[in-house]
């Protein structure tokens, strides 16, 4: 039996033929036809036209055929929701089938059909299947809850499926437990504040028992879930660790890595004096090394993770250098990662071997790899002082090869070596100068110029060398231009007599002929310095430079801690927090390592501080290429940098300055926007300032200009998640200005100060329009109410769901994150009224498929009441019509970002038994319809 023939039919009229075959009486022919349909679907042909014919084949006792039809349904149901209903009966019937395989198949497939109408019918079968006698059906139903939640979260909550799912954690079958854990974890991720996965010592115990018995995949789900738990003390942490360590011997690498994640996280809580701590450290190394004999793709994942582990706990792998030696046939991505780890593990004990290896690598074929190897030699020199001399001579050997990119890379690292060990290796300058002509990369040119300028007094022809660069000044990259400017000024300060002409030339090139503001500024500064006070100029330009530190490319400590919590996942592969690559609310929950418990606090030495070194040891990291500019400025102009920024000590607490880089990287790159100082922008169409609006608020009880509906405050951040700070709040819109009304309660035992707030980018650019002002410190048990004005001019990023808002609040204790959903009606602007003609034209203009229908149930209001209620929230009635006893309201509204939404609302006032309103919405961006509908519902029902 070969199926490949199905892939080859591409004749015209194929669809008709298939149609005929699908309706054939012969079973075999039918099956053949369905196979052909599936094959066409796979290669991307549109076979949706055959929907009814395929669905007709569904009623069959042939399991294979049934599965094929289901497959088709999953693909096309969404585009033909009405037709998909035809399949519902069969599904419901199949869920009752005596064969558990068919029951499971039906519930599994039904969950994959993402059509609202079908999900309603899914609830009953699902409820039965969750309590099925057969574990196979239960485990399938558990996953189905997660599917349903993805389609309609509210429905899942209303139907009580979450509780049933929680019960399944105590199921007798380990696989059911594992799938329930997986489903709950996923649902919990989209509700960061909910307490869905109520992990406590009892439930943890259940999970640990299931861990011994379930499949390899189930073990992964459970371990990943365990990693989110924070044990109450070090003893509990240790007992969990003891039960997780056997997993390190599992053949599945993902099980091993997830176990490593749990151990790395819980180890944080153990005292270093404990014998067990040492045992655990020893147990971690062998499985990590074993991961390197897995397939290359897994090796890559493992190496990316080991890179993190080595930074967090270098002691684990310090004796395992050899396993990271590169093999000739390793794929390039494995080679590059190994090299990184080799440098991190390099120490005085193994440096000779490492250097020999690196030298070997520098002769390989792959250019990136060779470059990295050369750079690594330089980094070894900086890291291990005893080896510096050998490194330099190795680099000189490599320069002799004259291979262009090797030479350039070598010169870049030699510059760093000069900075680390001043006045030691300058004898090699002559050799470097010989290679001046072969340098064509900006970084290498800049490095060479820096060397010439820095050691101008020892290079006889320094002026000639620099002059040779000056010829093509305007063709150089900024990096080189800046360096050349500084280099020549240095030269001038050292040898003023011969180089006056040269310095004038470069100053005029930089200031008069350049468009680059950085370059001009620096030029002017030098010029003025030189012309007013040459002595001061000397002090500034030739100031002693701070030494660069040995460790390079370290991941910032708070980010590192977060990434440790994500071992094994994509975040650990990208070395980025999930928020940087995951859209919407998922995964934005900030994870951090557990704090050490009180019982071990006494043992805390500076070494045990989880994040960041003590201030004196803060490394000045060698800048990456992009940062070089800033570094150079710093180098030459700034006052000698004697110490690190003062925030270091607070980093340890996790309380990073809100605007500092630390938080940015936690929340995901540059998503954060400094709060704009401007108040509400004019575009909102509200001429009244915020001061006046308070007045209005007092006076306008009934007026149309009164504010929109305000929901009661809800708890956004429970105290237990925020070290005692409880935040509840709501959103309001009053006369054109949006604000977030917050209530902060201090439930901790210490005073809270220094509050600040920031929003992540969001769908409508909401951002605080003013800083969060809490005037007095918040003492324990005190509550303060604040209204934070918001603007809609912040950065925009589409969120999932659309109205999701991620907020970070800082106080003197820590930074906390939560996300909340804002009602869309706060974005309905006051000038959102259209005239009839316009309405009509727009309604016609928007394509019909953008129309969305909703029902607002149990709303016994008449047209007048509805209209006035909506108007107070800026939904305007354009026209009203009475058709056959039904009132039709035509309404419109406009969002702050200029999106118009048109609505048709059908009310049946004459019929008391029917209190449902029918709403159809039309909008060019149909994503908002669902949320507008919710806004309607909230406004009308309150």
């Amino acid at each position, binding site marked *: 039996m070969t199926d490949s023939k199905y892939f080859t039919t591409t004749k015209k009229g194929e669809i008709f033929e298939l149609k005929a075959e699908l309706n054939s009486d012969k079973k075999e022919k039918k099956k053949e036809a369905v196979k052909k349909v599936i094959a066409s679907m796979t290669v991307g042909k549109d076979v949706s036209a055959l929907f009814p014919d395929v669905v007709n084949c569904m009623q069959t006792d042939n399991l294979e055929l049934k599965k094929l039809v289901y497959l088709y349904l999953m693909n096309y149901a969404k585009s033909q929701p009405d037709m998909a209903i035809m399949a519902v009966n069969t599904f419901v019937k199949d869920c009752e089938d005596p064969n558990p395989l068919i029951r499971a198949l039906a519930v599994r497939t039904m969950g994959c059909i993402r059509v609202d109408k079908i999900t309603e019918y899914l609830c009953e079968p699902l409820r039965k299947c969750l309590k099925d006698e057969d574990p196979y059906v239960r485990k399938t139903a558990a996953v189905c809850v997660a599917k349903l939640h993805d389609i309609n979260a509210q429905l899942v909550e209303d139907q009580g499926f979450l509780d049933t799912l929680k019960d399944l954690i105590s199921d007798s079958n380990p696989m059911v437990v594992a799938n329930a854990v997986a489903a709950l974890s996923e649902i919990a991720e989209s509700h960061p504040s909910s307490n869905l996965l109520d992990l406590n010592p009892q439930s943890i115990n259940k999970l640990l028992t299931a861990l011994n018995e379930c499949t390899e995949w189930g073990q992964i789900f459970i371990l990943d879930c365990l990693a989110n738990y924070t044990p109450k003390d070090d003893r509990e942490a240790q007992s969990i660790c003891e039960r997780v360590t056997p997993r390190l011997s599992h053949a599945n690498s993902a099980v091993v890595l997830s176990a490593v994640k749990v151990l790395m996280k819980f180890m944080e809580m153990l005292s270093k004096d404990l014998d067990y701590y040492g045992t655990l450290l020893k147990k971690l190394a062998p499985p990590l090394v074993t991961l390197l004999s897995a397939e290359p793709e897994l090796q890559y994942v493992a190496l990316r993770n080991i890179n993190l582990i080595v930074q967090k706990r270098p002691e684990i792998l310090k004796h395992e250098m050899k396993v990271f030696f590169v093999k000739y046939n390793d794929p390039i991505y494995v080679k590059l990662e190994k090299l990184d780890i080799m440098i991190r593990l390099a120490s005085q004990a193994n440096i000779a071997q490492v250097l020999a290896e690196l030298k070997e690598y520098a002769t390989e074929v792959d250019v990136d790899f060779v470059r990295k190897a050369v750079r690594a030699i330089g980094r070894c020199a900086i890291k291990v002082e005893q080896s510096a001399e050998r490194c330099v001579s190795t680099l000189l050997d490599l320069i002799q090869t004259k291979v262009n990119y090797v030479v350039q890379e070598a010169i870049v690292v030699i510059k760093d070596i000069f900075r680390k060990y001043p006045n030691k290796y300058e004898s090699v300058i002559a050799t470097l100068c010989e290679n001046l002509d072969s340098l064509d990369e900006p970084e290498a040119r800049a490095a060479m110029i820096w060397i010439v300028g820095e050691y101008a007094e020892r290079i006889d022809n320094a002026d000639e060398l620099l002059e040779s660069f000056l010829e093509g000044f305007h063709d150089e990259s900024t990096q080189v231009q800046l360096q050349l400017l500084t280099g020549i000024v240095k030269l001038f300060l050292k040898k003023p007599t011969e180089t006056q002409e040269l310095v004038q030339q470069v100053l005029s090139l930089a200031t008069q002929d350049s468009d680059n503001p950085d370059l001009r500024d620096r030029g002017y500064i030098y010029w003025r310095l030189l012309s007013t006070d040459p002595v001061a100029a000397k002090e500034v330009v030739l100031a002693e430079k701070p030494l660069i530190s040995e460790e390079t490319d370290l991941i910032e400590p708070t980010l590192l801690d977060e990434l440790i919590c994500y071992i094994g996942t*994509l975040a650990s592969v990208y070395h980025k927090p999930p928020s940087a690559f995951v859209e919407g609310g998922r995964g934005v929950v900030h994870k951090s390592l557990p704090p050490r418990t009180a019982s071990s606090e006494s043992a805390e030495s500076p070494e045990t501080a989880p994040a960041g070194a003590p201030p004196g040891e803060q490394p000045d990291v060698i800048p990456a290429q992009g940062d070089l500019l800033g570094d150079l400025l710093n180098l030459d102009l700034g006052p000698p940098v004697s110490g690190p920024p003062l925030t270091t000590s607070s980093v340890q607490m996790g309380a990073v300055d809100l605007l500092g880089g630390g938080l940015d990287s936690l929340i995901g790159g540059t998503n954060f926007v400094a709060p704009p100082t401007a108040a509400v922008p004019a575009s909102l169409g509200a001429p009244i300032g915020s001061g006046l609006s308070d007045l209005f608020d007092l006076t306008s009880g009934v007026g149309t200009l009164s504010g929109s509906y305000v929901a009661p405050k809800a708890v956004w951040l429970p105290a237990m998640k925020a070290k005692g700070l409880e935040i509840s709040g709501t959103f309001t819109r009053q006369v054109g200005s949006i604000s977030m009304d917050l209530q902060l309660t201090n439930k901790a035992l210490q005073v809270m100060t220094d509050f600040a707030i920031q929003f992540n980018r969001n769908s409508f650019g909401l951002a605080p329009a003013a800083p969060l002002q809490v005037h007095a410190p918040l003492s324990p048990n005190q509550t303060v109410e604040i209204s934070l004005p918001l603007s809609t001019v912040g950065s925009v990023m589409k969120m999932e769901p659309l109205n999701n808002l991620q907020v970070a609040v800082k106080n003197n204790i820590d930074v906390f994150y939560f996300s909340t959903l804002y009602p869309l009606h706060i974005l309905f602007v006051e000038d959102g009224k259209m005239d009839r003609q316009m309405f009509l034209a727009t309604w016609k203009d928007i394509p019909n498929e953008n129309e969305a229908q909703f029902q607002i149930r149990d709303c016994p209001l008449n047209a007048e009441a509805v209209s006035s209620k909506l108007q107070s929230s800026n939904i305007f009635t354009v026209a009203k019509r009475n058709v056959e006893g039904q009132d039709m309201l035509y309404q419109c509204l406009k969002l702050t970002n200029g999106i118009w939404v048109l609505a048709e609302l059908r009310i049946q006032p004459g019929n008391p038994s029917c209190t449902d309103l029918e709403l159809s919405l039309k909008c060019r961006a149909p994503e908002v319809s669902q949320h507008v509908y919710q806004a309607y519902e909230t406004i009308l029902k309150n």
Partner: protein
Amino acid sequence: MIGGLFIYNHKGEVLISRVYRDDIGSQAADSAVFSSSGPFLGERLGGSVRNAVDAFRVNVIHARQQVRSPVTNIARTSFFHVKRSNIWLAAVTKQNVNAAMVFEFLYKMCDVMAAYFGKISEENIKNNFVLIYELLDEILDFGYPQNSETGALKTFITQQGIKSQHQTKEEQSQITSQVTGQIGWRREGIKYRRNELFLDVLESVNLLMSPQGQVLSAHVSGRVVMKSYLSGMPECKFGMNDKIVIEKQGKGTADETSKSGKQSIAIDDCTFHQCVRLSKFDSERSISFIPPDGEFELMRYRTTKDIILPFRVIPLVREVGRTKLEVKVVIKSNFKPSLLAQKIEVRIPTPLNTSGVQVICMKGKAKYKASENAIVWKIKRMAGMKESQISAEIELLPTNDKKKWARPPISMNFEVPFAPSGLKVRYLKVFEPKLNYSDHDVIKWVRYIGRSGIYETRC
């Protein structure tokens, strides 16, 4: 979790596409919706998933340069891929999934497919696409991997398909309890007339040696593969000369163990098939399990201490002017003279600008293979404690290339009938309390094979 799984042929045509989640492939729509003037995008699922499919084709399969990472992020969508011959398997996601799990799953998927229809090739995939969809539906639910043991799967996903009608109720529940059960890898009621088992200790010895003969790194990665043909639900216990176990037992009787000549070995790390009770291994270091029926890999292990390196390669490369190289390579076998190594192959790389090669070897056959840029020297058999030699003269074309030849290492392949790590199987006991056969009735076979892994000497 995994949002979708695609299988492509070498041209980048989709052979199999299974979408588990809607979120994949909607990247184009995201940015456009909120720019008010931007085109309206309301693509249906079918259309948007094609975006993801195409993105991978364009950015990875048709990429000009070599693949730099097995994980690619294109427009906030992550693609994991593995390649089997010229078939690409790609898993796609938009979430922060467990990356190790995704790759493990992709390998597993390959194993399952291979177990069903042999080699993974375009033809086989096209011939079995219905089966593959059926498998994908079963082993991945909403992107969560489910039981993927072939033994279990084959009980209810068959190539003939139509089994369901004939199954009795007991059979059905037996299937489901096996798929979800604690011993998901074995079914009840297996019967053999002859209870027999085979143990293969397969080791691959890896070496990286400097030209001067210094061992830069060496390790053995070994596997114990078991073929079991045992009735019922047998409880097995496996023992080997693990240093930790021997020392534990040998307390007090240390002399005895050393007298009996039993050398123990230090195992750096080992991993086990999921049938092995890991907690028992952790506490008692005993390996006990109920095996799957047929062939499976019981354990993997790694050792680095006291490895017997079966061969030593001594290279000598001399550059004679710019157009000639003289190469001499000596190999020495280093094991008991009574044993025979087989399938010996030495691969000596030659520069890209080689124009001609003359080879003389004492034993076996040697050939210059221009397409592989190497001299390949093959010897069928070689006893222990012997020595053999090859010399070659390589003529080079003069080139202007400034860059020196990278001199790849000389690599070697071989097979020897012992375990280079020194591992010995001490026992494999079988208990089946319900059926009346005892450990003595089971016929057991043990075999040791040592193969070369990456066995390289730099020159």
